[in-house]
């Protein structure tokens, strides 16, 4: 197995504050990898640094054998890395279909119809609301839309930033079920989450990020029973 995405000794600074300290991680082809951590641990920073926002101060981010740490955001996004950003960030004034259409920017319209059909199979709720403005949908539906939009560019690696953010537990469960479905098609997923329980159950491997450093790593099941993780993220039961 070759690493699709690899972080090598990555440091990120916000001015004098160091947000990431010598982070090493890798995501292999076909894997679901999760990164869990509490507020302010640097999870979103890590994900955004893949897109050069912020730029890393030292180290390398290798994607398909190429260092992308100095490339522009749109270059990275056009090369098979799709992101469902934190807080969903859908286009509120556009209809569902138009939002999905925006997702095809990196690859053009060639597979648009086929992929949109596929997304409506994956997310039947979106099909019901295809001509509705995105801002009028519920949080869960918006999250589905954000994931579907990311998938419209036929990514090699899907990056998800807290898809459970601000959603009701039952919706979170649905979202993770959908992610499992997506993963079963062979999609490589890198998931950044606070909801450790769900994320670790879904993931093949996991990393635990604490104060910008990777504290623990292991398979999803290992981390799920790890006493330290249980203490910190799973309520200690």
């Amino acid at each position, binding site marked *: 197995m070759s690493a699709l995405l690899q972080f090598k000794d990555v440091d990120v600074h916000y001015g004098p504050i160091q947000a990431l300290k010598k982070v090493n991680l890798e995501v292999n082809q076909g894997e679901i990898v999760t990164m869990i951590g509490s507020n302010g641990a640097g999870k979103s920073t890590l994900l955004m640094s893949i897109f050069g926002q912020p730029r890393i101060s030292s180290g390398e981010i290798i994607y398909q054998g190429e260092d992308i740490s100095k490339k522009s*955001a749109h270059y990275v*996004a056009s090369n098979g890395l799709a992101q469902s950003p934190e807080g969903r960030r859908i286009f509120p*004034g556009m209809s569902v279909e138009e939002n999905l259409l*925006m*997702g095809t*920017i990196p690859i053009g319209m060639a597979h648009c119809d086929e992929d*949109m059909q596929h997304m409506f199979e994956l997310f039947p709720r979106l099909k019901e609301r295809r001509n509705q403005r995105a801002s009028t949908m519920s949080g869960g539906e918006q999250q589905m839309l954000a994931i579907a939009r990311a998938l419209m560019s036929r990514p090699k690696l899907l990056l998800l930033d807290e898809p459970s953010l601000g959603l009701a537990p039952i919706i979170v469960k649905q979202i993770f079920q959908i992610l499992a479905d997506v993963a079963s098609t062979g999609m490589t997923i890198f998931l950044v989450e606070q909801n450790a329980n769900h994320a670790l159950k879904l993931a093949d491997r996991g990393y635990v990020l604490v104060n910008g450093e990777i504290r623990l790593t292991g398979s999803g099941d290992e981390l799920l029973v790890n006493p330290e993780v249980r203490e910190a993220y799973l309520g200690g039961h």
Partner: protein
Amino acid sequence: MNQQTGVNFGASIKDAVIAGLLALIVFGPIVGVLLDGYDFSARPGDLATIVAVVMFGRFVISIFVQSDVGRKFLYRHAMKEDGVTVTAPDYKSKMYYILPIVIVIGLLVPFVATKYILTVVILGLIYVLLGLGLNIVVGLAGLLDLGFVGFYAIGAYGLALGYEYLGLGFWSMLPIAAVMAAIAGAILGFPVLRMHGDYLAIVTLGFGEIIRLVLTNWTEFTHGPNGVSAPLPTLFGLEFQRRSREGTPFHEFFGLPFDSAYKYMFVYLILFVVVLAVLYVKHRLTRMPIGRAWEALREDEIACRSLGLNHVLVKLSAFMLGASTGGIAGVFFATYQGFVNPSSFTFFESALILAIVVLGGMGSTLGVVIAAFVLTVMPEMLREFADYRVLMFGILMVVMMIWKPRGLVRVTRKGFATRKGAVK
């Protein structure tokens, strides 16, 4: 609002008294006190009249909104649903029937209208162009530009100075001015790529002022406040002056008596065709990926970048296309006036163009066209009330903000139609 059916006079009187007190505070120092030499003299009579008018008006409005008709009126206008209406993909706009009629009327105007009306309509069309240009930047891409008049000035001075120094006429300067303005748009666009909202507005405001100040102070090149004369367009080399320096003038060639209205008719016809062309281009652009990209950028820049949109290209294209439209408008302005000087390109012009876009409805093409005519033709028609122009402007804005905060014409966009058989 409570649901009682009767009219509550007590509440209305209370409203009227409050409005009267406010009017007293606002108008007291302005109207009630007259500076008389080194003394003040009180004018209680005028003040009392104004306060009485305000109180009566407030009372009538208060009664009106409590009636059934008034309640319905309020309800209809209270729906402040934001954003864009997306129509069904097979929705047929009424414009398909109206547009040919408008074009025919537009082409007939110069042959029936008087010279005065023609000049007013030309001015209206110039502002339509300006509004359409700024609409790309402000309405579609969501970049607040307060210095749009800079591009207008570049187009106008491009024609005047190009004629003076290079001997270039209207027809050669029309495309060159568009390109020049577009380059200026790019020059302005680069440094402001990272800016949003207020900061962007201030930088663009500065840009507009810089252009005006350069034109005023670089007297060796631009003749400063004295201005420069600009040439008229020619019809295949035929000029529209009474006497031509070289060749025959238009009226002699066709054996017509000289009439200064011919040149306005000609300018109008070119302008009308150019406006139609620009309208068509703008219409297509909003349906192209670049148009969607502008709107997406307005809605959420971070999402755009995460989707692989090159925000630099998208922003610059908006600035450049908007600016080039402004430049074209400038060329028409110069040729229509026959003369340009820096006082035509003050911040007030920028504010007027922005008002056209806001009043028309951000992003709405039809709205911009209507608003441009309302804001340029109306002051001409109401010449007698010239003193109250700014007051009417203000009242119009206040009324609009209350009842039509999204502009005269709400933006409707055709929903995206998937091809047949793709999605059932």
